[in-house]
């Protein structure tokens, strides 16, 4: 509904007011509140982050240690009140393992993002602002990385680096930065042409200040959507790596790995694979719903409606 209003509002010129971002976060939050779907996404994401932070501490059982005395008694039990997600072949509580898995996924995606975003920002800013040969070189290299389907390249890197959580993180980071360069550069190219940049130049404002005070703050908003969506994508990709045997190794309770482990007991012990996979689905869905909602909010048509306020 919101979108529809907006579209036509735009046509009546009185309401025209162009900006490039949301400045007022309270306003953005108001809009999120109006959209129940986006709100659900936000709740899932916040919940996931909280679980990632405190998950291992609130887990009812130890997610990693094996209690050898009771393996025979406890192994591969179906879901019950005591073990809502059942137990694995070592008698560990799967609910606890899935809870602990939130931290692994959160760690991986944070690690990947903390490499990919700064690299993408710096290279994108430089390429977009300076242009010329530097731009050409950066973009050629970026293009090469983007000529591989992402997961394929991550698998290749991960395989050569050797299985393990660390090499998976590294491989995913190597794969992820190029798309950020692209997005940042594209946005910088738009912002660079804005007249306030030229006005700053005319006043003698230093290049550094122009880059960091004018271009950067106006370039990162579209990144926000991408980062939100990519948080989910990284979780999905790292779980896929773990699933095929790269990435996290036992006894790390990684969700993808858990699904793979559970497959050995499939289909009789269905819960083993089912719940970790569900955890991935819900978490990634949360990020995607939130990202999708944010995209709508940041959509120019939508934005202008928010901005419509005249000063008397």
């Amino acid at each position, binding site marked *: 509904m919101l979108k529809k209003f907006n579209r036509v509002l735009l046509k009546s010129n009185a309401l025209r*007011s*162009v*900006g*490039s*971002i949301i*400045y*007022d976060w309270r306003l953005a939050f108001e809009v999120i509140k109006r959209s129940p779907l986006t709100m659900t996404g936000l709740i899932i994401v916040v919940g996931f982050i909280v679980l990632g932070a405190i998950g291992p501490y609130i887990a009812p059982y130890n997610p990693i240690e094996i209690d050898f005395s009771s393996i025979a008694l406890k192994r591969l039990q179906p879901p019950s009140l005591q073990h809502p997600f059942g137990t694995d072949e070592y008698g560990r509580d799967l609910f606890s393992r899935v809870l602990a898995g939130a931290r692994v996924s959160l760690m991986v995606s944070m690690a990947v993002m903390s490499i990919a975003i700064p690299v993408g920002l710096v290279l994108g800013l430089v390429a977009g602002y300076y242009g010329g040969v530097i731009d050409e070189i950066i973009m050629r290299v970026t293009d090469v990385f983007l000529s591989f389907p992402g997961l394929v390249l991550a698998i290749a890197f991960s395989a050569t680096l050797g299985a393990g959580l660390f090499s998976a993180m590294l491989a995913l980071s190597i794969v992820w930065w190029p798309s950020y360069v692209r997005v940042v550069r594209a946005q910088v190219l738009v912002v660079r042409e*804005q*007249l*306030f940049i*030229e*006005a*700053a*130049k*005319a*006043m*003698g*404002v*230093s290049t550094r*200040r122009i880059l960091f005070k*004018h271009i950067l*703050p*106006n370039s990162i908003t579209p990144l926000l959507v991408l980062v939100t969506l990519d948080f989910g994508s990284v979780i999905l990709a790292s779980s896929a790596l773990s699933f095929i045997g790269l990435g996290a190794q036992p006894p790390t309770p990684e969700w993808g790995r858990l699904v793979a482990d559970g497959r050995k007991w499939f289909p009789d012990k269905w819960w083993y694979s089912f719940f970790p996979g569900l955890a991935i689905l819900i978490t990634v869905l949360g990020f995607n719903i939130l990202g999708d909602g944010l995209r709508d909010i940041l959509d120019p048509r939508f934005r202008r409606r928010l*901005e419509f*306020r*005249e*000063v008397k």
Partner: protein
Amino acid sequence: MSATKVVLKVKNLRKWFPVKGVFFTKGFVKAVDGVSFEAYEETTLAIVGESGCGKTTLARLILRLIEPDEGSIIYNGVDVMKLSGKKLMEFRRKTGIVFQDPYSSLNPRMTIYEILKEPLETHGMLKEIDINEYLVKLLEKVGLQKEHLYRYPHEFSGGQRQRIAIARALALSPELVVLDEPTSSLDVSVQAQMLNMLRDIQAADKLTYIFITHDLGIVRYLAHYVAVMYLGKIVEYGPVEEVFEKPLHPYTKVLLSAVPIPDPSIARSRARIKVIGEPPSPLNPPLGCRFHPRCPYALSDCSRREMSLVEVEKRHLVSCILYS
């Protein structure tokens, strides 16, 4: 016109933009191609022309926002092209610019306070003044109030934003202000307010304006001198009254006869000079005089000889074979 001191002297300025093909440069957009003129102290020089004639590029060249390929810009006897470091900053302090689009000329992430403070900060003037008092005065000069300081640009209407942009240009008390179509995105009634304000500020602060526009009405109202541009070249230059009353170049005549006049008695009785076609692309401008394919008075020589500006009367120059 009492003032005769030349503030700005532009000589043979040239800027060609390369157009890239897949592998090679396909050609050049000859945006500004050998432009010379003078601007006098405390006067307004209007640069007028249709879209694509290079007037906006010229505005940026004058302030060295882009580097020319050739030519010189002498500001108060100093060659701007040779300036660097502190001297260049000094030049930046003495000049200001206001752009056409008030929506993209203000950083949406900064409050008006931050926007107006930036030039002062850049030039290390914060110590000398009481910033709050100074900014309030600045705002009042452009017809805004104190309470507007802490708002963001998107909270203002187009006209108000343009006032803020003007305030920013005036923040460093410049001597020369370049105004690039400052009113063309505004409504008629707001435009009149803005034009009057610009005129009052000029008188009060003894400013020199270079006013880029396509609106001949504004030129007549505000400017003292006018330079008419066509496809990267100045075809006529002179005092406004003279150029409008006795236009010499065929293009100027055509322009004046094509412009709609808001007065039916004049509009319907005047003789019209018809012109064929549209301005060609500056990518491959015609040889010889660039106006000759559309010129109602074209001679056979026009396609061969490129004319330069010739002074026909005092400070009234024209570049046309008819006056050589």
